[in-house]
Structure formats: C-alpha cells, structure tokens
C-alpha cells in the first residue's frame, strides 16, 4: 500500500483522477447554481488560506495581516478591470505584483519582530489598509467598488457559476502543488528551521531574517490569486475583505485540520463553507456552533482534526498488531 503510493506514476495518475472527479463532483451532486457556487467558494477560500498556511505552519508566526494581500488582489483587479478595462489575466498579474510589493514592504517592516509583536504589527497593517480603502475615493470608500464584468479568459466565458468553477478548481490545484513543492524546497525547510531554532539555523549558514522576509513575500500571491477570483465571483469588492470575517476564516482553515497538512486548508474551508451555505442557523447560533466545534477539536487533540484521525488510526493499528491466531499451515 505504502510503496504503491510512493510510486510517482501511481501518484500522478491518482492526482489526475482526483482532479477530474472534483471537476464533475458538483454535477454528480445535482448541479445547480448553489452547488457550483459552494464549490467555487471552497476553492477560493482555500487558496486564500494557503497563504496563511505557509506563514503559520512553516514560519510559525501568526500573521493577522494576511487579509491585506487578499484585499490587495481583489482591489487591484477591480480597479484595473472596472476603471481601465484591463484583460482579466493581465489584472491577475498586476494583482500578484501589487500584493508582493506590499508583502516586501511589510516583510521589511516586520523583519525584526516575532510572535506577538509580529502578529500585532501585521494586524496594524490590516487596520491601516482598512482606513485607506474606506477613506480614499479611488477605492470606492465604505461602499467599495461595483460593476465588475464577468470573467473571460481568452474565448472562455466564466460568467456562470458552472463555468466559473473550473477556473477556481485549476487555481486551487496549482496552489496546492506550489505549497507542496515549497515544503520540499530549501526555502521551505529553512523556514521551519528558523522557526524551531534561529540560532542554530544561523550557524548553519542561513540568513534567518532574509528567509522570513522571503517566505512572507511568497505567501502573498496565493492570497492575491484568491482575491482576484473572488472579485469576479462576487462582482463586488468592498472593505469587508479586510474584516475579521476572512481573517478568522483563514486562521480556522489552517488550524482546525492541524498545521502543515497539505490538504488541511482545503478540507477545513470545505467544512466551513458547506456549513455557512447549507446548514446555517443564523448568526448567533452559528457562532456557538462554530465556536463549539473549534473548541472541542482543539481541546481534545493537539493537532486538530488530524490528531483525531491519527488517534483513531493508531488505535486500529494497535488492534491489528495484537497477535493474530496462528494461521493453519498451508499445503503447497
């Protein structure tokens, strides 16, 4: 079983099959706008969360300013597409560039800070960004920007929920791949090392600060890509993108499943979005439900949902390991 999974051919075939299945899953579930929208939102919010995932799981810091990148992606897109009629794909390039530029500045600002100070400084950036977008006419003030056209990529019109979903799906697949490869790269491992033991990492020849700044920078494009998608999906870009709503969504998506689980953010966003879209009980009860689930998971398991599953799996294994009755000798 294990050796089968480590065979690269099997893995590639498996991945392709999973993607194809994901592509047709909404249809299998009955299609309809709402199903497609749910799937698209899962993909978008998962992409948004992967930016946070890198910072939180690999760099070990809690960035409370990750919404800035996501909002930067959405606002850049909306401004370019609405006001200058840019091509959507070009606006994506711009969205990523802008978010990375902001990330570089923030990265330099936060370069000496860690832990709470880092969290607070990044949160400060979100507050300031909020003040800017709600007060500058260009960004539409507290009303935000309306009038997004539908997403068209070359000849492909992604206007309907059904056509939009494949775009979101491809994006999330690419992002997950990128995150997986990041974790295998020198940068990815160094990020973890700087988190665990900065002095030792330095004496091993790595520049801790530079590593942190670079990782911070490369976390931005994922969130910006999500912002780009959301701008088209929702057709409305407003200051609420910088709200605690999305921040908490990201945090929950990363921590609920357990840190550094490749598919964790995807699974967690799926749970959260499905609950919001299909099993909502209104704000107050939703709060109790979400809070309750989070609390129960995190209080009973060190590594979130993954901890639960590991617990169950090891209990199984133990049962399996128990001496089996001797098998009757077989005759050849």
């Amino acid at each position, binding site marked *: 079983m294990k050796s089968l999974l480590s065979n690269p051919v099997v893995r590639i075939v498996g991945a392709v099959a999973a993607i194809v299945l994901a592509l047709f899953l909404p249809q299998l579930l009955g299609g309809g706008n709402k199903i497609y929208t749910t799937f698209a939102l899962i993909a978008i919010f998962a992409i948004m969360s992967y930016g946070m995932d890198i910072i939180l799981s690999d760099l070990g810091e809690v960035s409370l300013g990750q919404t800035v990148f996501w909002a930067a992606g959405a606002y850049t897109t909306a401004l370019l597409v609405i006001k200058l009629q840019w091509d959507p794909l070009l606006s994506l390039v711009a969205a990523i560039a802008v978010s990375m530029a902001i990330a570089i500045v923030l990265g330099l600002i936060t370069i000496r800070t860690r832990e709470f100070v880092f969290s607070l400084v990044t949160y400060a950036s979100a507050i300031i960004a909020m003040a800017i977008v709600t007060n500058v006419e260009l960004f539409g003030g507290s009303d935000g920007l309306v009038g997004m056209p539908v997403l068209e990529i070359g000849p492909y019109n992604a206007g309907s929920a059904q056509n939009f979903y494949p775009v979101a799906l491809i994006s999330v697949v690419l992002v997950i791949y990128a995150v997986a490869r990041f974790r295998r790269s020198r940068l990815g491992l160094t990020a973890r090392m700087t988190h665990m033991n900065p002095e030792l990492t330095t004496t091993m020849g790595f520049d801790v600060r530079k590593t942190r700044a670079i990782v911070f920078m490369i976390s931005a494009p994922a969130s910006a890509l999500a912002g780009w998608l959301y701008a088209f999906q929702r057709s409305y870009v407003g200051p609420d993108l910088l709200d605690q709503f999305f921040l908490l969504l990201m945090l929950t998506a990363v921590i609920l499943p357990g840190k550094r689980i490749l598919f964790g953010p995807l699974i967690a966003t799926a749970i959260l979005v499905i609950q919001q879209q299909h099993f909502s009980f209104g704000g*107050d009860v939703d709060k109790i439900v979400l*809070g309750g689930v989070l609390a129960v998971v995190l209080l009973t398991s060190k590594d979130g949902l993954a901890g639960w599953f590991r617990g169950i799996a090891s209990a199984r294994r133990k049962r399996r390991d128990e001496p089996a009755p001797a098998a009757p000798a077989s005759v050849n």
Partner: protein
Amino acid sequence: MNQFLSQLINGVALGAGYALLAVGWSVLLSAARLVNFSHGQLYMIGAFVTWWSMSSLGLPYYAAVPIAVIAVGLIGFLMQGLMSKLIISQNLVSLMLVTLAFGYIITGGASLIFSGNPRQIASPAMGERIYILNTYITMQEVVIIIAALVLYGVTWLVLEKTTAGRKVRGVAEDPFLARLYGINPGKVYAGVFVFSAASAALAGALIGPRHPILTSMGFEEVIITFLVVVLGGIGSIIGGLVAGFGLGLFVALFGAYVSPAYAMPAAFAVLLVLLVVRPQGLKVKS
C-alpha cells in the same frame, strides 16, 4: 491652551479605560505567557451581568459590580480548566484559536440570553460630573482611573516583589521546572486566568455605564487590549499602564488636532513604526 488641557483630560479618561481593560491580559501575557482572545467578550459579559443584576435582581450598582467580577472569574476558571493541557504545553497558536472560539460561544450565547438590544447600566456615578474647562469628567471615570492605578500598582508589587509573583513568572517560563521548585503550575495558571477574567469583568462593569452596551461588543476591546499590552512591552506591567494612558492621550490629541475618525488607524501606524524601531515595545528593563 484650554482646548489642549480639555483634551488632555478627555485623554486621561479614555486612557484609564484602556489601561483597566488591558491589565488582565497584561498579567496573562507578561507573567504567564498565555493569550485570551475572548478577553473582550469577558468584558462584555461583565457589563451584562452587572446590568442584569441591577435590572433583574434589583441590586444597586455597587453590589452588582462584585457579582459580575465573581461570575466572570468563575467563567475564567472554567475556561482554564478546559484548556489546561494546551496551557501546559504552551501551544500559543491553538490557545489563540480556542479562546477566539470561546469568544464566539460567549457572544452567541449572550445574544440569545440578553438579546441584541442595547442596554444601559445605570451607575449613579455617571450622573456626578466635574466640569473642567471645556469638558467634564464623571465620577465614574474617577473610579475607573483609581481602579486602574490601584490594580496596576498591586499587580506590579505582587509580581515583582513577592515570592508569589516570582512563582507566576517561573511557571510562565517553564512549568515543568516549576514543579521542582515545589510549585503547582495548574494552580498558578488557574489563579492568573481567574484574575485576568475577573479584571476584564471589572473593566466591563466600570466602563460599561459610559455608553449603551451590546452583546456584540468584544472584538474591538480585544484589539485595543492587544495593542496596549504589546506596546507596553510583553513582560512589563507598568509598560501596560503607560501604554494605556498613552494611547488614551494619543487618541484624544489626535482626535482634537487631526480627526477622531483616524485616531485608531493612526495609533496603529505609530505602533507599527515604534515596534519596528523597538521590537520590545516600551519595556525598559533589559
């Protein structure tokens, strides 16, 4: 000049509130290296229990305040009991999210119990006003200022000058090692958490009468608290006091001479610059 002095007075009144709000967190973070992102919700519950004790039990304000403090202290005790494993392992990220989750539960529960309507805590001290220059200060705020100063003073003395305080700091640093010193880390954590929750409730009960209270309060309060504590320097109680009053004065003066609307973003901008220059905050100790 009068205008400036008036705004200073406004700033002191505001700042005392910020400081009082933050003292519990300051102890929690500085002394026990714990976080509690439901601090603002505990503040809210403190205010609502005060209101409820007055409107439903018919108690006078000054009797309702201790009830709120005790009730929320108990909630704090319960919370820390549930979180004891996370606390001992100093799993800060999970603690952050779990406490956020508690905040959710508290907000949702309080909205169901107390409804979303605004309430007003009728403190007699709100009506007593001292007029100074172009502004006034209520007796309530005098109480808040005194409470803040006393609470910080006592906390500082206990943490810095007593064996009990050293134990708290020891547990914060290494709960396992603390056992070898004969200290029960569980008890210390419980004590710190209860203090922190109770002081949040005290803040709610004292600051609450200044404006209508809502069950949706809390998130802003957490952020202000966070700001005050980090600005004051983690590990420094007095830093929290200075940062609280400093923030109040900043908000007042910025509001007076620039615009009240941008006071908080501006405070965050200042904080950003300050923390970049001095990542350790205002803390002076080495």
